[in-house]
Structure formats: structure tokens, C-alpha cells
């Protein structure tokens, strides 16, 4: 566990030792703040449901920018050789990087709790639906980050890694848009595949085992594939 934490701390250090982390936090929070104001002003509801859905849409574009360097940079600078010849398992490496990125993402999410404080000040929002919305958006981000980690492990080029993330995230996010062309099983599959379907339930206060399973299995699949991707050697 110590090695995983050391890897996570190194990852966080990599973000916060340059202006990248601060710029990303400022950019993301500024966008969220604008949309939060617009949604509240237009809907005049003490609910964060639409805010969560806007956050999900923004994450499709922003998370690949955060994750593209996770393994790509290690590959392009030669530090991957340092990590893979150290006495640590590929699983530790994957989990360490994932934990570091998730810590950064959790800090970002924590900074949006001010929205709850604001709606609470002006009305009586349903705390359960807001809590479930936060759980949903956190799981969604965790899934997107796992996808970004996977694509970053495929290439030493950060731009290509980001492009591959965008491709996968667009397919998942816009899967429901293709339902008009299909019926029956395919239609149901596309609905279940889409991240929007699952976040919508969380945003309206419903936490279902199916939605949790969707995110957790997606995260697990990506982490396992990432492990396989970086461990292309026979030595174990």
C-alpha cells in the first residue's frame, strides 16, 4: 500500500508542481460556476439535477486533458523503464496512478459543494437527491478517468491518448442518440451503455444496484485492461 500511495503522491506532485493543475481547476470551476448560475436563474429550482448533467457533459471534454499524460508522458520521457524495473507489480503502478488522479478529481468535486450550500441557503433542497447526484458524478468521473488511464497506456503520444479517450467517451455519452435507428435489444443495449442513462438516475435521487454495477464494472474493466497493456513482458 505504501508504494501505491507513493505513486499517487508523485502523480499529484506532477500536477501541482506546474500551473497545469491550477489552470485546470480554475477553468473547470469557472465553467461550472457559469452553468450553475444560468441553470439556477432559469429553472428557479432548489435542485442540482441539471448542474450534475452539465458537469457530466463538461467531463467528457475535460477529463481526457487531465488523463492523457498519465502513462504517455512516462513512455515518452523514458521513466516507464524506471517504473517497470522497480520491484513493484503492474497492478501497483496502475492503482497508484489511478489513486493520484482520483484524488485530484475528488478535490475538484469537493470544491463544487459550495453549490449545495448556496441552494440550501436560498431554499430547502432534497439533501438525498443532491448526495446521490454527487455519488453519481463522482462515479462517472472515476469511470472517465479509468478510460483515460487505459488510452494513455496505449501510446507515448499524449495527443493520441486524448483523442482515443474522446472517441470512447463520445460513444458512451452519445450512445442514446443512436437509439432512433434501432429497436429491441440493440436499442436497450444502447440505452444501458450510455453514461447519461445512469447519471440521470443518480441526479434524480435514485441509487440503483444496476447503475452502481455499471460504473464499477466499467472502472474495473479499464483498470484490468490497463494492467495488461503496460505489462507486455513475460516476466511476472
Amino acid at each position, binding site marked *: 500500500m505504501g508504494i501505491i500511495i507513493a505513486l499517487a503522491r*508523485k502523480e499529484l506532485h506532477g500536477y501541482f*508542481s506546474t500551473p497545469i493543475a491550477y489552470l485546470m481547476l480554475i477553468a473547470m470551476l469557472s465553467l461550472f460556476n457559469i452553468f450553475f448560475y444560468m441553470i439556477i436563474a432559469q429553472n428557479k429550482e432548489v435542485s442540482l439535477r441539471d448542474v450534475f448533467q452539465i458537469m457530466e457533459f463538461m467531463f467528457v471534454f475535460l477529463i481526457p486533458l487531465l488523463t492523457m499524460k498519465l502513462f504517455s508522458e512516462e513512455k515518452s520521457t523514458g521513466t516507464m523503464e524506471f517504473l517497470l*524495473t*522497480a*520491484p*513493484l507489480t503492474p497492478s501497483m503502478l496502475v492503482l497508484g496512478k489511478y489513486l493520484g488522479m482520483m484524488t485530484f478529481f475528488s478535490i475538484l468535486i469537493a470544491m463544487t459543494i459550495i453549490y449545495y450550500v448556496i441552494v440550501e441557503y436560498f431554499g430547502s433542497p432534497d439533501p438525498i437527491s443532491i448526495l446521490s447526484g454527487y455519488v453519481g458524478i463522482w462515479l462517472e468521473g472515476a469511470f472517465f478517468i479509468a478510460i483515460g488511464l487505459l488510452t494513455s497506456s496505449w501510446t507515448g503520444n499524449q495527443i493520441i491518448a486524448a483523442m482515443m479517450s474522446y472517441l470512447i467517451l463520445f460513444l458512451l455519452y452519445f450512445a442514446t442518440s443512436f437509439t432512433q435507428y434501432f429497436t429491441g435489444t440493440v436499442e436497450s443495449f444502447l440505452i444501458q451503455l450510455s453514461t447519461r442513462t445512469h447519471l440521470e438516475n443518480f441526479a434524480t435521487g435514485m441509487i440503483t444496484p444496476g447503475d452502481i454495477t455499471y460504473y464499477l464494472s466499467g472502472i474495473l474493466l479499464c483498470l484490468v485492461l490497463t494492467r495488461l497493456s503496460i505489462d507486455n513482458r*513475460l*516476466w511476472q
Partner: protein
Amino acid sequence: MIIVDNVVKNFGSFQALDHVSFEIGKGDIVGFLGKNGAGKTTLMRILTSFLAPSSGKVIIDGSDMAKNSLTIRQQIGYLPETPPLYNSMAVESYLKFAAQIKGVRAKKQRIQLAKVIEECNLAQVKHKTIATLSKGYKQRVGIAQAIIHEPKVLILDEPTSGLDPIQVQQVLALIKNQREQRTVILSTHNLTEIEQIAHRVLIIKSGKIIIDQSLKGLLKAKNDQHTLFQAEPHLQPASLEQIFINLHQLNSSQETTPDNTTGDKWV
């Protein structure tokens, strides 16, 4: 200490290593020599477990690499050709990170950190960001990360590449100091450096070890009427560098001539 048995490495249809076998004893300093693309780095990457061979065995300190890679990696310090450094980190933070991922116990980390900083003469720059360091310092930080967990085997891929003469001497002195504590394998193009520090030389050509000999024995060849050079007296070597050049000029049938005069192995 190290046994390499019939190792082959193929990259698609290209054979980078062709049935390589050798043994290295404890405390030896062995130089890998060869032209670019000869297979030195591939061999080093196999010894560090970064790459797996297509066939063959590697045994380090009694353990089979295929079965106990993690345990063996604990015993190996490795400096790749490009020092694996995180430019945004300070020297001390980077070395602490290296100690952590190499499994140095928390209580011992501070002691090891102080030890390698002193040994590699990094005290002046320990708080500096790695990006701001000179190439010589970066190389020393690279060596420091390779020895921070006190490995039994130190593998250095062209550790003096791109350094100025003063920096080369500093790095060579640092490597020399390691020989009492660990087995050292290094690759270089600079044969003068090998003459200064190595006990033994392995010359690799097209993925094969064409000479595996003690440095003394190899240098002795320049004075002897060695069978290898009898056929072409104009190639009679005058230095290790010339031996190296000559071997690359000789045809393959001459390369396989055994050396019975010194007892060393001409493969």
C-alpha cells in the same frame, strides 16, 4: 551471481540476441562493448526484467528471473541510457520517491537518502529542481536512484554518454567506488573507460557475444601473436579500441577462433 543461459530475443523477424550465454561472478565489473544496434541495451533490458527473452534463462543471485522477477528486481539497480528523471521534482524528493517504490523501509529511507546524496556528491543540488541541473548532475542523480536500495547488481547503460571529460571522470570514480559493494555491468562506446574500470569485457556483435574475456587477457592479445590476427598481421591490435575495431572488420569464421593461450573464452 548472474547466469545468462542461451538467451534469444526476437523483435518480429529481427533477432536482437542470438543464443547469448555467460556468467558473471560477485563483485565483478563487466563492460559490454559493441556498436550501436549490437544488442547491448536489449541484453541489459532483459537482465533488468524490463524485457522478457524469446527463449533462454536468466538466473540472478540463485533465482530464476522467469519465476521471481519481483524479488530479483529488488537486487538490481538500473540506469538506462537516458536517466529516468522527473524534471519537475527536486533531487531529494525524487530520490525519496525512488526509495519508496524500491521498497526501502520507511525507517531506513532517510539514512539511505543521506548516504546516496553523499556518495554521489549531490548535497549542493539536493533542493534544486532536476530540470535545472547540468547533464553531469543528472547522470549522478540517475546513479543515485539506481543504488538507493543497495542492490547487489548495478546495471548502467552508457553512463558517461554525452558528458564532458571532467564529468566522465567523476562518474567513473563513482562507478569504481561501487565495485566493493556490488557487481557492476556497464555498456559504453568509450573503450578507454572500460580499460579504466572493468575486470572483464564482453564484446557483442549482431546479437552474439564474440568475445568474453578478462580485460588483462584481452590487452595481452596486443602483444601476443594471437591466432585471431595471424591471418591478417596488419590488424595486429595496439589497444583495446583497436581490438574492438579489428573484430568488427574480421569475417565471421575468424571471430569463432578459440583462445587457448589465455584460457579465456572466445565465443
